[in-house]
């Protein structure tokens, strides 16, 4: 390695800061949307009626089965222009990341919901709770506690995958790392910097989830 040039990083810091804002924005928006969509798809996939469940199964198969990069490009060049009249890399990025992660999150929710003992649903049913109320107040709180570790996996993947939005020129962290690499023909400075930023972001989210886990474990 030739000598590491900190001055280059300092020069690029303003761009990286801008990039962090975008990356965090992408991540938070997509985590929120992806979790909501994922829950709905999990519920859809568990419908007892096979025909009603089929489209949800197809959704999961398709979004897990194809590359996120392709999904981003198709949504950016195909879906978003159709709806908004023109491409918008921010909207397309968030949409693609949410839809993609929701397929994975759906399976995680499904595993947690199925792990809650049947007796819980039966007790709620005899108390007159509707299936929705049972899900919301009884099953989900217990399921979420179980699935926090794999949810953490998914959120972390999502943060890192947000770097793919650079391909549609969304100015997030990786976009600027690539720009810096292109400008100076240096590999280490830009990619170590962006790597460090992702590491900090993912460690933050996993420590948040760990503390939620600890809090929930108290009534075990």
């Amino acid at each position: 390695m030739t000598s590491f040039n900190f001055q280059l990083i300092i020069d690029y810091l303003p761009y990286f800061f801008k990039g962090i804002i975008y990356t965090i924005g992408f991540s938070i928006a997509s985590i929120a949307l992806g979790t909501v969509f994922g829950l709905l798809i999990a519920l859809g996939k568990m419908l007892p009626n096979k025909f009603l469940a089929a489209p949800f199964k197809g959704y999961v198969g398709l979004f897990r089965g194809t590359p996120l990069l392709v999904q981003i490009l198709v949504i950016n060049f195909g879906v978003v222009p159709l709806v908004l009249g023109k491409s918008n890399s921010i909207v397309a990025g968030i949409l693609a990341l949410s839809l993609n992660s929701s397929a994975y999150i759906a399976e995680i929710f499904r595993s947690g919901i199925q792990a809650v003992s049947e007796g819980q649903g039966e007790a709620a049913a005899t108390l007159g709770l509707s299936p929705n109320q049972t899900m919301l107040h009884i099953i989900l709180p217990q399921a979420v506690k179980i699935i926090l570790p794999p949810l953490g996996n998914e959120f972390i993947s999502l943060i890192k995958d947000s770097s793919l939005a650079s391909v549609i020129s969304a100015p997030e962290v990786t976009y600027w790392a690539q720009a810096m690499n292109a400008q100076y023909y240096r590999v280490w400075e830009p990619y170590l910097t962006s790597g460090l930023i992702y590491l900090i972001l993912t460690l933050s989210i996993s420590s948040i989830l760990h503390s939620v886990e600890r809090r929930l474990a108290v009534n075990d």
Partner: protein
Amino acid sequence: MIRVEHLQKKFGNSEVLKDINFKVDENDVVVIIGPSGSGKSTLLRCVAKLENATSGDIFFNDTKMTEEDHKLCELKGKLGMVFQHFNLFPNLTVLQNITLAPILVKKIEKKEAVEDAKYLLDLVGLGEKAGAYPHSLSGGQKQRVAIARSLAMHPQLMLFDEPTSALDPEMVGEVLQVMKKLANEGMTMIIVTHEMGFARQVSNRVLFMDGGHIVEENTPDELFDHPIHQRTQDFLAKVLV
């Protein structure tokens, strides 16, 4: 109040309930006794619509309970059940376990629901455990919370599946007291129990089940003192020593 007609229940190939017929009128207290595996729990679960019968009908207040019934939930709220295995909600405190359904289903004011819950907790001797989580309760304490939770919905019909089996004798007496009080107040109940003395005092009808059949049905005095069928006689001989 409730009428069961030609009820049959199969798990796979094994027929657990065979042509069950009986009626429970308002203010009735019906006790079901019988050996282990005879189908008592399964029958209660069918009445509570936790299992779908393989064939046969159940009528609640002369309305047939069908699978598709949109009002099933509403119906279920009028029908309390205390389980053999408690099934408390581990994510909620004792108080929240009790107030959840009244608030959500009956739309009762939270303050009112809490008051009622505290009254019921005192009734089952657990006034000081309102804020505890189920995991920290002893077996007997859990069962008492489960009873209080069911009572909080003030249901028209209560189903008890061996509600005192996890309780110590001291507590059994107190819980049976509560149930007796409910019976006197006119609550309709179906109780699976092995407390023969209690059955005799509180019930106006006893069903004896064996092998998925209702073998014999009578008033408690008649059934306990003059059982007709050989199987009933054998069972009671062992039990009443």
